[in-house]
């Protein structure tokens, strides 16, 4: 008769889902704590209240921080996606001489300790008056998001046959037209998801913002860091819950978009 599921795959499955639980539980545990009535965090939470959400939405400080973060993240997404996609395109379709330099520089922002970059940037931006300004945040965050944009678009671009563009060019299209009408639509889902990724990286960035935040301009993570260190109340889980819901929504949206693009 047909063999049943063997022990090997059962064990593998069990192990994998345990690891996934390890990955997910710290994110999930946050959610109920945002509804607790006490000022400090506890689990299981006592009572049920939405007051922490209310506090988040009504407090001017949180609102300002959130608004700043949204502005910065939005502009970062645009800059990183434009610069990253242009560079990736040049690397994939270009002459390839600068490839190794490009690779090394690209991973730089991931592996250089952010604290070092933060201090360096603070010194630099302070001299030229960019510290604590929206352009300052955007520049810094664009650097941090670029590697991820490039990885994502490079993977997509690598899958688009170079001959598509050649075909378009043999049909009379200039290279730019070929890119705009053929290549871009084909990599668009990845470009969009890299833009989301850049948005989230910026929206979530604690260390560099920590130093660059100015007297008035304070990003959401900077404020959260402050509160975690100095004033940990369930507002933090409430914000975290909102962020997680946002992330999941964006992720699922991206998945849906990709599967629609595929069919």
């Amino acid at each position, binding site marked *: 008769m047909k063999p049943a599921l063997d022990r090997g795959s059962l064990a593998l499955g069990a192990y994998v889902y345990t690891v996934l639980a390890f990955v997910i539980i710290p994110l999930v545990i946050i959610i109920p704590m945002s509804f607790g009535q006490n000022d400090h965090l506890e689990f299981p939470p006592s009572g049920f209240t939405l007051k922490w959400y209310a506090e988040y939405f009504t407090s001017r400080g949180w609102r300002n921080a959130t608004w700043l973060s949204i502005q910065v993240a939005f502009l970062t997404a645009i800059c990183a996606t434009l610069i990253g996609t242009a560079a990736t395109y040049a690397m994939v379709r270009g002459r390839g001489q600068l490839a190794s330099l490009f690779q090394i520089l690209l991973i730089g922002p991931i592996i250089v300790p952010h604290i070092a970059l933060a201090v360096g940037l603070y010194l630099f931006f302070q001299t030229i008056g960019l510290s604590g300004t929206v352009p300052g945040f955007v520049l810094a965050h664009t650097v941090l998001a670029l590697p991820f944009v490039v990885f994502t678009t490079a993977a997509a671009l690598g899958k688009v046959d170079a001959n598509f563009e050649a075909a378009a060019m043999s049909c009379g299209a200039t290279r730019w037209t070929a890119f705009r009408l053929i290549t871009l639509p084909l990599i668009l889902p990845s470009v969009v998801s890299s833009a989301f990724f850049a948005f989230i990286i910026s929206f979530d960035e604690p260390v560099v913002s920590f*130093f660059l935040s100015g007297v008035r301009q304070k990003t959401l993570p900077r404020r959260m860091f402050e509160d975690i260190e100095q004033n940990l109340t369930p507002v933090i889980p409430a914000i975290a819950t909102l962020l997680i819901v946002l992330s999941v929504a964006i992720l699922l949206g991206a998945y849906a978009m990709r599967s629609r693009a595929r069919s």
Partner: protein
Amino acid sequence: QDLEDQLVIATTGGLMGNALNKYFYEPFGKAKDVEVVPVAIEVPDQWARAEAMMRTGNVEFDIVTATGPDLVARTNMLEKIDCSQLPNVQKYAVPDACTPYGVARTTGGMLLTYNTEAFKGKAPKTWSDFWDVKQFPGPRGLPDTGDRDWWVPVAALLADGVKPEQLFPLDLDRAYKKLDEIRPHVAVWWKTGDQVQQIMRSRDVVMTMSYSGRSLAIIKEGVPAAMSWEGAIRDTGYMSILKGAPDKKAAMAYLDYFYASTDTHVPFMRDVQYATASKSAIELMKPEERDLYATSPANYEKLVKPDFEWIGAHRDELRQRWTAWLTR
């Protein structure tokens, strides 16, 4: 008076920041038509920023928070304050409130706080009790923030039987030998005031060195905890003016304004759990309430008064010793 339009004050955030804002910044802003911009920032970050401001010549902060040793060790970053220009401070504050580089803001103590349910009715009182893991078993907390490089050795020397008045100059060899004894029992080296509250609430420790204000806050919250002023170390926060501050006049005006109204100091002290240096304010409190604050005569006399000159002069040695010991 011709003040600048704004005044940037760096203070720790949280409770302290909120209360300062409510009782002092807003009224001052209204009264003098100056926009007060509070910057919530941890003291170390504040100094890091200040360092960068000095390096780049772009000074943003006017008033910063300084501790006693800072007034000695960081004079190169601070404006000298002319106390004669601050009549209200002269008039309402305790005598040593105005120093050449800072005006006292709040005073608390680094003191022993313990969980009242942990020792079946017995109550630890002194730093020797803190070291006594037989009688008072359970995980300890000690600070790894701010001025811990002398706070903790001071507590160790007291535990080892040194008289408070003979503490300085600190015998660091003796202190660290004593510290080696307690080290295995320290579960948390806490870094912020909020964290010390958390570890008391969550019972991650049964006993810890803590800011008096933070201890007071959790006691009021209903956590079964108590504090002992025996051997508490005086911890005064000063308001200092950063060298090259853009709004120096407004800063001076604010320093003076801080002590102008005795009435606001009482509710402020109740909110932040720390005493200000307003001698007139503490007198307005009932005696039993007064005893919750470091500046009540009963407590003030038990406080260890640190020798900032010595500490300021030996800052590097203190810190090196601490880091070397702690990261071993």
